[in-house]
């Protein structure tokens, strides 16, 4: 019994310490943005690596999620003679939920793990200490440019995922199953408004920040050589993905209050 309480206490202390470290990192980023040195070259490199470099994977993911969702909705709606409403369902779901979440999960896997691995390797090979010895704050040099790049990239990547998801769904349902294009298009446009798109963009922005903070924190706290870097990389991906899913739920509740369904329809 004592052992269970001790382990529970240790687990709780570890979690609190983790949250404390995240809060410390967030504060350092705040200071860095206000007072740190501006490094446009690093920002450009990160925009290319995180934004431009993620496009293909995000487009393919968004397109096929949209396609399969469209197919399933079509198959179900057909029984109620509502197949022309498939586009409306796909479009709203892609904008509000599927686009942001699947994009964030793919970016957590591709970019988050890469950030943790790169920064973690720099940590265990003393490259971060080398930066510090040159009077450069690691958050200024490694974290802030990545965060700014992600804040710009994520909403755009999500927009791409949504657009390609809706497009491939259209191809499947209209071109593949012969749903009249006019009905499909009209239902889609009538049901999708700026609020739906805004929700996707806001979620993307928040998820981008989450992924960078969690992944960079994992990298900055890597230890024990290659094994430690491997663990940090995996943790960055898993923890980011979990936080994306949990935060998405609460963000959906909040944003549905701010932008209720049909508010601008």
């Amino acid at each position: 019994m004592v052992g269970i309480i001790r382990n529970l206490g240790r687990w709780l202390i570890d979690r609190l310490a983790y949250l404390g470290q995240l809060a410390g990192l967030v504060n350092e980023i705040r200071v860095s943005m206000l007072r740190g040195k501006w490094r446009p070259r690093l920002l450009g490199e990160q925009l290319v690596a995180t934004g431009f470099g993620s496009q293909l994977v995000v487009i393919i993911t968004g397109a096929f999620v949209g396609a399969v969702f469209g197919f399933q909705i079509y198959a179900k709606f057909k029984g109620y003679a509502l197949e022309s409403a498939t586009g409306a369902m796909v479009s709203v779901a892609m904008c509000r939920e599927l686009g942001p979440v699947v994009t964030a999960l793919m970016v957590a896997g591709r970019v988050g793990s890469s950030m943790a691995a790169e920064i973690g390797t720099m940590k265990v090979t003393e490259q971060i200490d080398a930066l510090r010895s040159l009077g450069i704050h690691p958050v200024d040099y490694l974290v802030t440019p990545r965060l700014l790049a992600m804040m710009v990239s994520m909403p755009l990547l999500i927009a791409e995922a949504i657009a390609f998801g809706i497009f491939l769904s259209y191809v499947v349902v209209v071109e593949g199953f012969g749903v009249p294009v006019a009905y499909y298009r009209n239902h889609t446009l009538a049901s999708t408004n700026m609020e739906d798109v805004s929700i996707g963009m806001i979620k993307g922005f928040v998820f981008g920040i989450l992924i960078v903070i969690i992944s960079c924190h994992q990298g900055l706290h890597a230890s024990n050589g290659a094994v430690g870097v491997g663990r940090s990389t995996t943790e960055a991906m898993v923890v980011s993905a979990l936080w994306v899913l949990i935060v998405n739920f609460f963000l959906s509740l909040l944003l549905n209050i701010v932008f209720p369904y049909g508010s601008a329809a």
Partner: protein
Amino acid sequence: MSAAETGAAFIEATGLVKRLGGQSVLDGTTLSLRRGETLAVLGRSGEGKSVLLKHLAGLMMPDAGSVRIDGEEIVGVDERRLGPVRRKFGLLFQNGALFDSFNVEDNVAFPLLEQGLRDSTEVRRRVLAALEAVGMADHLMKMPIHLSGGQRKRVALARAIITQPRCLLYDEPTAGLDPIGTANIDRLIRGFQERYQVTSLVITHDLKTVERIADRVAFLRAGRIHFLGAPSAFFTTADPVLRQFLDGRADDSDAR
């Protein structure tokens, strides 16, 4: 008025205490580095020499004690305020710690660019001069992964000296090098000291290196400075702990 001007030590560590992983690494370590001298710090593996060096450079903070660099207390100072202090010295890491996404030229130019030097001709001139000083001017475009251990250390040395710091801290600069490579690095260290009157602290296991470069020797044992004095006194000491180290004798328990 700076410490140098008042004749005080360039780096002065007093009563450093540090526990890592529940073990005491530094236990009241007191050490000062005089301006213009080369101090060799020796000790058995795992005695905390690198930890001591990181404390002297402000890269680690002690649990208790004080570190003054050029008269300025750095313990408890915010990381962002340490930048100007850290730029007073160059640090050579054990494995070089070169930035592996940069080639040799970019690694060596990095401190200059970060200090705001924008004249690319001047940057290149100084990079070439630093690389020539360490015999690596022919390797400008190579990536660190394609360099040998000794070459990496020489490039890291060029990066450490390019801003012409007043103090150089070396963490095992000759570890893993062949005797000729070791002699080359020793000559560079001595050369910098003689040419620029740089204050140097060298963490090493290599007794030949101590003979070649040191003005004073410190021996770290159980988290404290066990010996501090001239190399001649160090090499002729009768202290049993130092004699075992100097003679390279195995521990009694290991020998059995």
